[in-house]
């Protein structure tokens, strides 16, 4: 069997093996989650970011199994391969977007995902309280998803947004940093 590129895998799975839902349903569902969090934490946006990240983490640790089960792909050989899989397979099959991978650091342990299109933030305008625009990372759930999913394949990463068009920036950019490759766990006890 010929080796398939991440783009082919992503396209393939997206076309044949994914049940689609209405995009507005997703956007509005996510929107109401963020809105509720803002209310619950009385507009403490730092807390909201944190909660979104946690929720994303819990999604990510499950979602990774779904990707692996659907794509049946081999283990990535380098962090560059991982980045390709995240963009061309992960984001493709769950959100039908393929964020661009840019700005690799010298040591190949950091890269940026540039979101030209972000289905989560359609229709969104940040609240005009002078705080949200500096503090809230509206799509922060995605950072958690990446962190959770990658941890399950033994990659500990840090993911955070560094700019967002919602805040008036030119691009929406997420910075992903590889912290370390986790070791296999050993059995405890004497057996």
């Amino acid at each position, binding site marked *: 069997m010929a080796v398939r590129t991440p783009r082919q895998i992503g396209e393939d799975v997206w076309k044949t093996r994914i049940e689609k839902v209405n995009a507005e349903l997703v956007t509005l569902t996510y929107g109401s989650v963020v809105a509720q969090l803002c209310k619950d934490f009385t507009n403490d946006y730092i807390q909201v970011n944190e909660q979104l990240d946690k929720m994303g983490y819990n999604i990510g640790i499950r979602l990774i199994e779904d990707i692996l089960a659907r794509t*049946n792909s081999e283990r990535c050989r380098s962090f560059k391969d991982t980045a390709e899989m995240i963009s061309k397979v992960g984001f493709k099959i769950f959100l039908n977007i393929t964020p661009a991978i840019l700005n690799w650091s010298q040591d190949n342990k950091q890269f940026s995902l540039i979101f030209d299109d972000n289905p989560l933030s359609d229709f969104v305008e940040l609240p005009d309280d002078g705080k949200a625009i500096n503090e809230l990372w509206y799509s922060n759930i995605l950072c958690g998803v990446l962190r959770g999913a990658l941890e399950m394949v033994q990659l500990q990463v840090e993911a955070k947004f560094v700019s967002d068009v919602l805040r008036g920036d030119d691009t929406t950019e997420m910075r992903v940093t590889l912290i370390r490759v986790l070791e296999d766990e050993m059995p405890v*006890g004497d*057996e």
Partner: protein
Amino acid sequence: MTIYSFWIFDRHCECIYHKDFKRPMRQLRPTSALSSTDPKQRNTSGGPPKGSGPLTVDDESKLVFGVVFSLRNMVKKLSGDQESFFSFKTTKYKLHFFETQTNLRFVMVTDTRVDGVRPILEQIYAGLYVEYVVKNPLSPPEHPGGEGVNNELFTLGLDRFLRPLSIFE
């Protein structure tokens, strides 16, 4: 041809699912206070008992895990991280192994004539484990302390999937 037993181990090296099918050979001692005549508690594979008397299910799970884990590590050391082993065979049984990238390990012990179990293990992972256990939002993502997968849909699905197979007789 027949399947003797089936095991799932998680990335923390804990046995999170275990099911016995046909037990032609040695009986196991149950771990808990269950009756030892319970047919579910009998088993066949495993290494030699350390002391006298039959093995407990717990002991056997540790032995099974120990052997697949060591073999897997040895294979990786010898021929690189991408490498994995599929099965090994003794005079009495054959053990098949499949590991996911998330370090879930699926093990099936069958008689010696059974071939090609790997696709079956992959299907159990993709079609049953991911569908019923991972995607069930109320099922915990981890199963610490050997609590294990306690999921009726998964158990039923596994049974329904394995019984019609030609290797299950």
